[in-house]
């Protein structure tokens, strides 16, 4: 039996797992239309490489990685690209984001997948690039590009690989079902991770409310061929938080502002291991994932759907909403957010869709003033003082909030859950964080502008100097010439003047004839606008002329 290190704080909300974990994972049928957002992972969104009207095949890359922290996105089926435009996406803001809409042709023809069965003999860097091009990102919710996490830096050794099967959020059961039904596949994915990281021990943390998943994983682990331990962890939210699970299993605390790799631990989600297996075994990119559809629906269950499936269709696949539904939640009830538009598609980060009703999810009672009871501090798994953070975030004193380590907050929602005054504490923390990030961005922009302005001033100064030097040189030259031949100056100057006059006249004539460039093929309203501007300029010119004549 492994020694566990219980993390501080945490809560135990009603689990609501049994609604959806009784049915096997269903396969979604082919739908007529998919919408694949290009921003499905942390970092830079993928760059679209198809345009409207293109025919694409299933598994074809339609968005390529852009920069280091980025990964690819792929067509979920064969068909025609009908839009590359901002469309609704599952995001708390409800703002539309760039996405590629594909109309399925019903054939579901795939490109030729290239399995990576010889991955053990492949160059690790090549393998990682393949993994990036197959679009792998953490499917637990943070969607960090996996190929970066699979790259152990030369200095940092990663002796411990942790597989996160805790699934601590209420309602969600997609990892549970996956572990029950496909443990061997998951283990083959883990084998790749273990080999790439050279991990010495592999731990699979599963909450003890999932005995079936535990048993299945344990049975499979007996023949996996590398040291792997399946560990039951007590059911306590947020045991599935990366830092919490690391501490729980190893007793190692991740320092503030550091990553788990800094203490020699790497954490992956179960779903990521499964998609890695698909990538290695079949060469299949991430074009589907298992999503829990639960709550106030007819048949709560887990469904394996293609990335890009509109959530409205997904809910229909689970038997549809029951009467009296009051909204939809993406993710769990603790960390999830309300979906604004059900045309938004399933992305790599969507692990659960909960249909709300007023009984399961009553509207929050109005918040009351903080009574400084300290419940939130007791519940905080990150050992913060949420009441202090709240005090300063509310007063918009972000410097102080940062002083109380606002950025160590994992937004797990334990503090809001236990608050007897029903204060939406996490909302204040998110507000504070995004304000600080915005300020940071502004500071960077200002710094850049300052540098550019300084260079601008320097350049102006330099040009002025150059001009002055040139003039001085010319004057010196003229002085020398003037001294040498003063007699010939007069007729020469006269001739020059005549040439100059002719040039000026030519220029004026040319000016009258000049037509602004790129005015062909402009729409009539713009043409009209141009005509107006021309008229105004003509008027101004006349006025200026008149003034000149007045002066004369």
């Amino acid at each position, binding site marked *: 039996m492994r020694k566990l290190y219980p993390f501080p704080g945490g809560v135990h909300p009603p689990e609501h797992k049994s609604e959806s974990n009784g049915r096997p994972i269903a396969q979604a049928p082919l739908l007529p239309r998919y919408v694949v957002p290009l921003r499905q992972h942390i970092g830079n969104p993928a760059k679209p490489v198809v345009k409207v009207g293109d025919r694409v095949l299933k598994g074809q890359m339609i968005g390529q990685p852009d920069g280091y922290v980025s990964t690819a996105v792929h067509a979920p089926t064969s068909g025609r690209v009908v839009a590359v435009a901002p469309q609704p996406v599952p995001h708390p803001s409800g703002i539309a984001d760039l996405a590629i809409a594909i109309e399925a042709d019903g054939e579901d023809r795939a490109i030729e997948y290239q399995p990576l069965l010889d991955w053990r003999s492949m160059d690790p860097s090549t393998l990682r690039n393949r993994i990036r091009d197959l679009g792998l990102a953490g499917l637990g919710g943070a969607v960090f590009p996996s190929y970066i996490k699979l790259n152990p830096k030369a200095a940092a050794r990663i002796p411990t690989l942790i597989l996160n099967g805790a699934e601590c959020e209420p309602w969600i059961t997609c990892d549970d079902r996956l572990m029950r039904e496909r443990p061997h596949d998951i283990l083959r994915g883990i084998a790749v991770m273990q080999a790439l990281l050279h991990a010495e021990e592999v731990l699979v943390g599963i909450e003890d409310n999932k005995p079936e998943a535990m048993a299945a994983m344990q049975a499979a682990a007996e023949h996996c061929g590398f040291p792997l331990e399946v560990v039951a962890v007590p059911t306590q939210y947020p045991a599935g938080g990366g830092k919490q699970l690391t501490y729980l299993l190893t007793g190692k605390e991740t320092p503030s502002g550091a990553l788990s790799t800094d203490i020699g631990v790497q954490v992956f989600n179960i779903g990521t291991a499964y998609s890695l297996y698909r990538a290695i075994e079949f060469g299949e990119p991430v074009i589907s994932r298992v999503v829990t559809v639960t709550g106030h629906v007819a048949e709560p269950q887990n469904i394996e759907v293609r990335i890009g499936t509109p959530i409205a269709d997904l809910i229909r696949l689970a038997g549809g909403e029951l009467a009296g539904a009051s909204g939809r939640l993406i993710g769990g009830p603790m960390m999830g957010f309300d979906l604004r538009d059900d045309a938004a598609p399933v992305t790599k980060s969507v692990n659960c869709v909960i249909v709300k009703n007023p009984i399961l999810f009553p509207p929050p009672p109005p918040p009351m003033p903080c009574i400084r009871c300290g419940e939130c501090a007791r519940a905080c798994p990150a050992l913060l003082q949420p009441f202090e953070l709240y005090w300063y975030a509310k007063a918009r004193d972000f410097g102080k909030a940062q002083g109380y380590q606002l950025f160590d907050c994992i937004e797990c929602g334990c503090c809001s859950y236990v608050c007897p005054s029903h204060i939406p504490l996490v909302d204040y923390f*998110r507000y504070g964080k995004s304000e600080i990030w915005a300020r940071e961005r502004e500071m960077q*922009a200002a710094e850049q502008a300052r540098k550019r302005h300084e260079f*601008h001033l320097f350049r102006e100064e330099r040009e002025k100097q150059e001009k002055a030097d040139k003039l001085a040189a010319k004057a010196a030259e003229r002085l020398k010439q003037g001294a040498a031949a003063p007699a010939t100056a007069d007729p020469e100057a006269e001739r020059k003047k005549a040439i100059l006059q002719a040039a000026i006249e030519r220029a004026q004539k040319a000016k009258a004839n000049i037509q602004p460039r790129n005015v062909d093929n402009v729409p009539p309203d713009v043409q009209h606008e141009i005509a107006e501007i021309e008229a105004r*300029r003509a008027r101004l010119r006349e006025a200026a002329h008149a003034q000149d004549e007045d002066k004369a």
Partner: protein
Amino acid sequence: MITAILIMAGGGLLLGAVLGWASVRYRVQEDPLVEKIDAILPQTQCGQCGFPGCKPYAEAIAKGEADINRCPPGGEDGVKRLAELLGVDPKPLDEGLEHKPKAVAVIDENLCIGCTLCIQACPVDAIVGAAKQMHVIIADQCTGCELCLPPCPVECIHMEVIREDISRWKWRYPVIPLHPVRQA
């Protein structure tokens, strides 16, 4: 009486000598305060404060020649932070100055005649172009100072407010909706 005068004079001389030595020893070369003020200013270089750029304004504030509430792009927030740095009370923006949402300049490509006047006006060299060629503004570098608007002879430059997208989106301040306790 003489003793008293001697004591006071001697003491005065001694202390004066000490102070004189200290003033040489602890001479302040330059004022790093300017840098700190400059770091708070938004660096739009727009000149709305009445100084030709952010640095001159920072210098003026440090010397006490300018008030802290003359920077509209910095807004109320900027004034607050300046007040905090300098230990004075924050105050609203000076009259006639108003904080506008951040915008970038955009050149209407159909109208641009390629006169290069805006290029010369841009304080951060964010406009690319050459004589008689169409100009274009690098949106990422544009500070929204509006200095390129007046020189344009064909008025082809206009300001576009930056729209919120997902990467720039911010969580809102939690607002608690008020419900009437009982409807009449």
